[in-house]
């Protein structure tokens, strides 16, 4: 049984660029991004004012649902800004990265660095919006509220926001993969023990094949790979929208 939660495999290391390391999760993310771009190109090919093809209807449904999400969580004045495509891209990338584990890749979201990158991006956007809507004085004054003594607490909670989002996403995906690995290992041992009870040559041959590994892991994979992936992507995006909307004073 091999439960591996150490960092991603390093495929290539370039000492000339200051020890730049190309990891497996970077390559997988690139592949996911390429697939997403190709899907977008396919869905938006020869669009017409009156939709004739199914794929245009799907594309329009995607865009309107993201617009509705942004309108509900961030307010009307964010509609039509850069945040609509940003949230859509974040959702698609997060869900795509997590689901890539179905195709045998090690999901990039199992790597803390990937999710921490998104968390830092969201933190920058929150701070940018706070300064944009409240001014730099208002931003600094926000730390001293409600009383001046609370300043250290406010600074900690400011830093905890992106960290909590990161660990929530990372922890959910990693716990799913650890549980799946444990169940695979357990089922292999169990089928070896149970099928070994059959006497004669039939038992000794059958006990080498982990027959019990069929079935149950598929149901778990349905939950951990599909449901959990979309759920975490949705939650990450909703929290992003709530925090940015809150920073803008809605």
């Amino acid at each position: 049984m091999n439960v591996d939660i150490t960092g991603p495999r390093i495929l290539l290391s370039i000492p000339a660029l200051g020890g730049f390391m190309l990891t497996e999760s970077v390559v997988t993310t690139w592949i996911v991004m390429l697939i997403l771009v190709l899907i977008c190109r396919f869905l938006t090919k020869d669009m017409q004012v009156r939709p004739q093809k199914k794929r245009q209807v799907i594309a329009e449904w995607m865009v309107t649902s993201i617009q509705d999400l942004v309108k509900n969580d961030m307010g009307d004045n964010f509609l039509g800004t850069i945040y609509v495509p940003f949230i859509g891209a974040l959702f698609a990338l997060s869900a795509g990265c997590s689901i890539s584990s179905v195709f045998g890749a090690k999901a990039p979201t199992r790597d803390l660095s990937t999710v921490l990158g998104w968390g830092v991006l969201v933190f920058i956007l929150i701070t940018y919006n706070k300064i944009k809507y409240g001014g730099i004085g208002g931003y600094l004054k926000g730390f001293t509220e409600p009383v001046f003594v609370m300043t250290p607490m406010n600074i900690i909670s400011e830093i905890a926001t992106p960290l909590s989002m990161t660990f929530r996403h990372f922890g959910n995906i990693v716990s799913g993969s650890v549980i799946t690995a444990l169940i695979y290992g357990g089922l292999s041992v169990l089928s070896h023990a149970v099928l070994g009870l059959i006497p004669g040559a039939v038992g000794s041959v059958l006990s080498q094949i982990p027959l019990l590994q069929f079935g149950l892991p598929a149901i778990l994979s349905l939950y951990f790979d599909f449901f959990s992936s979309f759920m975490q992507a949705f939650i990450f995006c909703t929290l992003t929208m709530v925090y940015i909307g809150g920073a803008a004073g809605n």
Partner: protein
Amino acid sequence: MDAQTTQVLAKAIVAGLSALGAGCGMSGGIGPGIGEGYAVGKAIESMARQPEMRGTLTTTMFMGCAVAETTGIYSLIIALILIFANPLVSMF
């Protein structure tokens, strides 16, 4: 006892206590379990009262569950660090 034996013993004690700590730390999973169960129960009550609000209630419930899950996830991460990437063992 020579120095090497002491070192091995120290590492063994740290590793064993870390495993114990990871197990104890996962008792942090109790809180989210209770909290999520409570949230889902309330959501079902509301759905029984207002079945037409089902969509909104389900979305909000999942959001709340995911946020309530955070403390459990924190303890999971601490447990994983203690088991797989223990920083304390290398101190000896």
